[in-house]
Structure formats: structure tokens, C-alpha cells
């Protein structure tokens, strides 16, 4: 089985948020609960200030702390699904320990105060155990893998669009949207990325495009000190997370 990995080239990324939008539509996430988000930072001061941005999906860590802490095995890493980390919505008790343990802040407990008003859950109230029921819903649903619209009281997160990826023919190394044979199986954020800043493929195959890029362009993983070893790599200048400095402290920092 492949080990699915993603490479995000920050030299190409324009921070346009097309990936964020595509992900929300593909996965019917609540507005604001973005499984894939682009985070913006700035560092330094005018005239030498720098604007930085960082697209951030779930890193599908090789050594995921969210899995280690989950008391019910609701969160699990599935080697047969390319090492993607899933949340089984039938098992999650909503203790939120995984959210505490994930260093990347990519998990959502959507049963919370609406991030964006008005609360869309009131416009489309649930009628079938889901947290909300919008008129258009992705027909793919698999609660054991946290795919679909989440029910109340559980945690959700990016699944690398497993409902698409799983249809890829056995043995495919690169899921490249330029290849008509496989483009339907490419994760939504990768497929939609206009400047083609994202790549998706098999990290276990040395010939895969993702591995070649990681080797040639010094791919880095974020917050490597936590030992989580993401399956998402970043290329280009500024592939890091700046230390947090609150706005009103920037001057004395």
C-alpha cells in the first residue's frame, strides 16, 4: 500500500484560499471550521516587514499524537488507507483530548459557538443525526472514517479526501491532476490549486514526484521537535511557523 503524502510549495502558493474553499465544499464543513485553512503571519516591521502564509491541512502524522491519546481508538491511523489518520464518528466520545494533543490545531469540535454568524446550523437544521443538513451534500459518507457531515459531539478533521483517493487504481504513484487518468482521485485542495503549489503521491516510492521534490528542494516538516513526523512537507522560503507574539507586544518582543 502506498503511504500518501502531500508537498506544498510555498514559493508557488499565492495564499488565494481556493484550497480552503474547495475543501469546505467537498467535505461540507461548517463555515469557519476549515479542515484546510491558509494561515497568515507577518514578521518584522515596515519597511522590511514580511507577509507569510501557510496552507495547513491535517499533517496525517507518521507518529500522530492524536492517536496516542485517544482513549477509545476513535482516532486511528490506517496503514491500509495510505497511512491516513481517521476519526471514527461511531466511537468518538467527544473528550477533545486529541485536540489538545495535536500540535497543528487541525481538529474541530464543530458543536460549538458558530465561528461565523448567522449560524448556518439554524438555517439547515439536522434531520438525520448530522450536526446540520445542507441541501447539497457530498454523496460519499463513511462515519467510520469521519467522512460526511459530522454528528454532534465528535471531532472531525481532514481525511486527505480519502473518499476520492481510495478509488485510485492500485499501484499509482502520483495523483497528479494533470494526468487525466487519475485526476478524479486527487484531493480537492490539490486539484483546485491554481498555481499548482500542491503535489500528492506515495512517500514510500522513491520515484514519486513528492519524494523527488522533497529531496531536490529540501522539503521540511513543521514543528518537527514534537516528533509527530508529518506526511505533509513544505518547500520554499519561509516554511516554518513563526513564534507567537501578540500584536500589542511586537515592539518590546
Amino acid at each position, binding site marked *: 500500500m502506498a503511504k500518501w503524502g502531500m508537498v506544498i510549495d510555498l514559493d508557488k502558493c499565492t495564499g488565494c484560499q481556493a484550497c480552503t474553499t474547495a475543501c469546505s465544499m467537498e467535505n461540507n464543513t461548517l463555515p469557519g471550521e476549515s479542515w484546510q485553512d491558509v*494561515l497568515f503571519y507577518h514578521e518584522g516591521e515596515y519597511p522590511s516587514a514580511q507577509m507569510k502564509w501557510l496552507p495547513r491541512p491535517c499533517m496525517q502524522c507518521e507518529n500522530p499524537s492524536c492517536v496516542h491519546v485517544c482513549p477509545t481508538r476513535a482516532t486511528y491511523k490506517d496503514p491500509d488507507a495510505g497511512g491516513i489518520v481517521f476519526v471514527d464518528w461511531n*466511537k468518538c466520545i467527544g473528550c477533545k483530548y486529541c485536540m*489538545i494533543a*495535536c500540535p497543528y*490545531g487541525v481538529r474541530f469540535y464543530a*458543536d460549538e*459557538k*458558530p465561528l461565523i454568524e448567522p449560524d448556518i446550523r439554524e438555517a439547515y437544521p439536522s434531520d438525520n443525526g448530522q450536526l446540520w443538513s445542507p441541501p447539497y451534500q457530498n454523496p460519499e459518507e463513511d462515519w467510520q472514517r469521519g467522512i460526511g457531515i459530522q454528528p454532534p459531539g465528535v471531532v472531525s478533521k481532514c481525511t486527505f479526501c480519502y473518499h476520492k483517493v481510495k478509488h485510485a487504481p492500485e499501484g499509482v504513484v502520483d495523483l497528479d491532476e494533470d494526468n487525466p487518468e487519475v485526476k478524479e482521485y486527487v484531493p480537492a485542495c490539490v486539484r483546485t490549486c491554481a498555481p499548482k503549489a500542491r503535489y500528492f503521491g506515495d512517500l514510500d516510492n522513491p520515484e514519486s514526484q513528492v519524494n523527488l521534490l522533497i529531496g531536490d528542494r529540501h522539503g521540511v516538516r513543521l514543528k518537527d521537535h514534537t516528533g509527530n513526523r508529518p506526511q505533509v512537507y513544505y518547500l520554499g522560503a519561509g516554511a516554518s511557523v513563526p513564534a507567537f507574539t501578540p500584536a*500589542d507586544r511586537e515592539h518590546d518582543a
Partner: protein
Amino acid sequence: MNISMKDMQTRTQANVLQGPLGWGLLVAAGVVLLASLAFALIQLMTSGHTSFNTSSTLPWGQPIATYLYFALASSGLGLIASLPLVFGFKQYYPVAKRCIFLAFIVLISGMAVLALELGNVFRMLWAIPLNLQVQSAMFWMGVFYALDLLFLLWKFSKLQGGEWDSKTAKQVGIASFIGVLLASGNLALIFGMMSMRPFWFDALLPIYFYFTGVTSGVAALVFFTYLAHGFQRERMPPALQALLTGALPKLFAALIGGTLLFIAVRAITGLYSNNPEINLVWTGYLFASPLYNASLLLGLVLPFVVMLSASLRNRAGVQVLVACLVFLGLFAERFYFVVGGQVVPLFHGTWQPGLISYTPSATEWSLTFVGISLCFVLYLLGEKFLNLGDMPRHMAEAPAGAQANTA
């Protein structure tokens, strides 16, 4: 037989909670419990967790802090009960039974609050045992606290049957002591092992939790013991009076001092650290909050200073006041500990320029009140029906003077 009957009677009269006052308080606590529980349940059923002020960036709020407070106070009470039952500090016998009972009900109350905080409570009952995720500290928390409850119950039933010193009572006592250490130490590791949450990441957290847990346990014990006797020490049996003017206040003073020391070293290393996820929590959140500073000064520093004076610390009124202050002070400590680990945005540079702000919602407060009032209801029932002031007969019958000597 005659003597013990008489003995029972004197104690029955001595304990005001067994009379009409107890009923009155029980009704009052019951009303608060029903009201807060009803409010919480209605909120949870109509708007779910949207009635909490927690969020995906700050998932653990006041209900978790409340649970933590109760669980650790229970462990503290369990450890104090081990003083006479395991380690032979005889002067603590007069509070042993009350301690164990309190440990049991405080833990039950904490668990009730935690249950109401979870997204899917009942699923827990099968999902945790069936999946045996032994890597998870939270799995072990369930195991150890369940064992703790079991041993407390067992130990209580031994004392209830008048077995203070038998071999099995001792063995159960030792098992219970170990259970308490495992449970609360493991609870500390739930936070202490999170390298991605540097404010909590601390190998010595179990020691900090033991220490502060015992401090809150003593606060609860002092308060409830006085409550049982209408806040009048003269109504207490001599052996209990001797304890409350002898070993216990000294222990209480030392515990508050130790707690302060722990907070001080955490604060000093935290302020010294360059890591914003530690030092900003101290400067930008804890010490920037008037409420935190007030709770530290009034809830721990002031009680410590007062308890340093031998004449003050032996006064009944002072002890009750200090117990209440320490109760509030440590509750605040737990709250700021739990929230403090999360206020620095983890990975959200985006439009999150400041620390994440959080104030508990009405529903979250109602859960805290559920915990407190449940504790009172169970405690008052215990005082009524279980003779919590019981002690080994030779102590109960000894004159006051002899007690002072054993103390």
C-alpha cells in the same frame, strides 16, 4: 454494649447535621442541585455544546477544571485517610471515616461534571473498555479512578463494620493508597506529557498534583468537619478537638506553604523561559489577570501567613475561613492551569493576534454548581445515615487529656 450505645447517642447529639439543620441544608442543596442540573440538561439538549464558551482552539474549559479540582481533592482526602489507616498516625483516626466518605463523593461529583462535558457520554461505557487503548493516559485515568472508587467503597465498608485495624482493613488501605497515587499521578500526566502544550509539559506535575490535591483535601475536610458540628468545636468529641488544635492545622499550614512554593518555582521558571507558550501565559494571562492575582494572594498567601501563627491557626473561626479561602484559591489555580495551557494560539497566526480569550458560560457555571451541590447532598446524606464521625472505640472513650498525649 451499653457503653457503645451511650457512645453512639452522645455522638448523635453532637452532630448537628443529624438533626433538623441537616434536613434544612439537605433541602437547600437538593434545590440547588436540581436547578443547576435542570438548567444544564436543558441547555445541552436544546443547544448542545454551543452553550459552552469553549472552542476548537480552546477545547477544555471550566467543566474540565472543575473535574480536575474534584478529582484531586478526592485524591487528597484519600491520602489523608491513609495517614492513620496505612501509616499509623493515630491522631488522625477521628477524621478517617469522614475523609474516605468525602473522597468517594467528591470523586463521584467530579465524574458527574466530566460526564456532562463529554460529547457522547454513554458511548464511553463500551468504547473505552472494548478498544483497550493502553497508550492513552486517559484510558488509564478511567481504570485508576474506577479502582480508586472501588477501594474507597471497600475501605469505607470496613470502617462501617467497625474494622479499624484488621489485617484486611490494612491491606485494603494500602491498595487504596497506591490506587490514589496512580490515579492522581496519572491525571497529572494527562497534562504533563503534552510536549505540544509547553505550559503543562512537566515531568514533576504528578508531585505538584499530589501536593495541591492534599491541600484542597484538607480544606474540604476542615470545612465539612466543622459544618458537621455547627462550626462549634466544643461540640466535637475530645479526640477530634485534639486533632484540630494539634496535628491538623500544622499540616494544613505546611501544605499551603508547599503549594505556594510549587507555584513560585513554576512561575519563576516560566517567566525565565523564552518560550512564548510558557512565559506569555504567565505575563500575559495569569499575572495580567486581577482575578488570578487576587486568588493567589487571598486564597493562598493570606491563609499561609495566618496559619503561621500558632495562636491564630488553632482558632476554629480562622480554620474555617482559611479552609474556604484555600478552596477558592485552589479552584482558581485549577482553572487558570487548565485554561493557561491553551491560551496561546497553537497554530493560528491568522487573524488571531492576541491570546485566546475565554470566560465560562452560564451552562459551564451550572456544571460547576452541579458538582458542588451534588457533593453537599451526598455529604449531608452521609452525615445523616452513616455516622461519619466514628472512630475506634478506645479513642472515642478516652478523656480529652489522654488524647493530647497521643497527639
